[in-house]
């Protein structure tokens, strides 16, 4: 590492303090609403934490519970699924199927002992860019408070 970069890092550390732990969050977003909402948040230069990794799906009905489980297996600290408001589905009823499926997924996670605060389901429309950024901030803070997820194979 060159001297200059070291100095630069020192400078950054001085200004912002030591790098804080940030959770990593998996967000499964519907193409027609929340993904566009995230896009709007970006193009409007709204700030939200860079903790979130976005997976675009054609509909919240495509958000397979296995995606959520896989996220936790692979060590994400939190998983969120966002879809169109009831009545607004691009495919008429995909989000109604998602509603039951995701509700049961949340129950399964609870039964498996994963804190419910690590999973979030919400309706976000394409025009709700500010709501999207607020949600990410909120959920990031919520997961951060819980600390790192120690994995599904954690023993006592």
């Amino acid at each position, binding site marked *: 590492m060159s001297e200059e970069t070291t100095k630069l890092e020192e400078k950054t550390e001085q200004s912002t303090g030591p790098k804080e732990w940030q959770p990593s969050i998996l967000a499964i977003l519907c193409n027609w609403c929340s993904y566009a909402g995230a896009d709007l948040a970006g193009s409007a230069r709204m700030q939200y934490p860079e903790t979130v990794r976005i997976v675009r799906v054609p509909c919240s009905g495509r958000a397979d519970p*296995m995606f959520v489980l896989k996220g936790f297996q692979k060590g994400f600290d939190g998983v969120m699924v966002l879809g169109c408001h009831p009545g607004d589905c691009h495919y008429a009823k995909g989000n109604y199927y998602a509603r039951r499926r995701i509700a*049961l997924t949340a129950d399964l996670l609870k039964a498996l*002992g994963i804190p419910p605060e690590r999973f979030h*389901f919400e309706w976000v429309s394409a025009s709700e860019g500010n709501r999207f950024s607020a949600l990410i901030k909120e959920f990031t803070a919520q997961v951060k408070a819980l600390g790192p997820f120690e994995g599904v194979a954690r*023993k006592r």
Partner: protein
Amino acid sequence: MSDIQNKIQEEAKKALESGQVGLVIGWGAGSVPFKTTPVFIEKPEDVEKLVWNPVCVNNLAVYLPKMARDRKVGVVAKPCDIRSIVTLIREKQLKRENVFIIGLACGGVIDATKLASSALSEVPEVPSAETLREQCKVCDSRTPSVSDVTIGEATARAEDLKIEIEGLSEDRQAYWAEQFSRCIRCYACRQVCPGCYCDTCFCDRIEPKWTSKKATADEAWMFHATRAMHLAGRCIGCGECERVCPVGIPAVELARELNAIAKERYGFDPGSGEEEKPLLGSFTDGDYDPAHHSE
């Protein structure tokens, strides 16, 4: 009891002789005491192999999707097995006209592992509270909901059972991590499950690779968690997965819990009616909304 056994043999013989069915699936004597094994009867003279006693635990519905695909098959079934059959019909894995159900009234069956330790010389007619299988303690189906022939009358439970199933431990994440760490990924739970009829199971897929073949705790977690999700609102709680597990993982507990939620929240009871749509294949306008409850 032998009365019931005789009637089963009689009905099976009638069905085979008339050509109504080409095969009858039932229970036969096992190779060791207190064990029964599935038997497949094709000739009327073989019906004597059929037995009935409270150690007839196997859920024979598991054979139906493949064996009753192109022909009519007779099956001897307890009320819980019939719930499996109803689920298979609802999910279009079985045609109602392809199955001849010899339904039995049932007062619960015996957990053979408990029987061995209680040192009984012969199989009791009605299981006692100590030997009753766990899932029979919470079972409400005493008589067949659907059948072509019904044999016997609903037997009362041995006594008024107020046995509570041991609650799950506080720290469930550690509890399940401990349970799943024993999993050797033999997939016996899947093979014996009447609900697991997919031609290619998600865990056998190479692409996408949902779980690897490694028998590590997190891969086992992924397998069991996904299997529980796939059985949500479909598992009838026969407990076969738990019975066949060589390392004693109580996999049915997860499904039982999801089913309790399905019943309470959506009024859905798997295996109760033939016409209903699957739980996750339907919705109503006023469904519970997880979005407004997650905080």
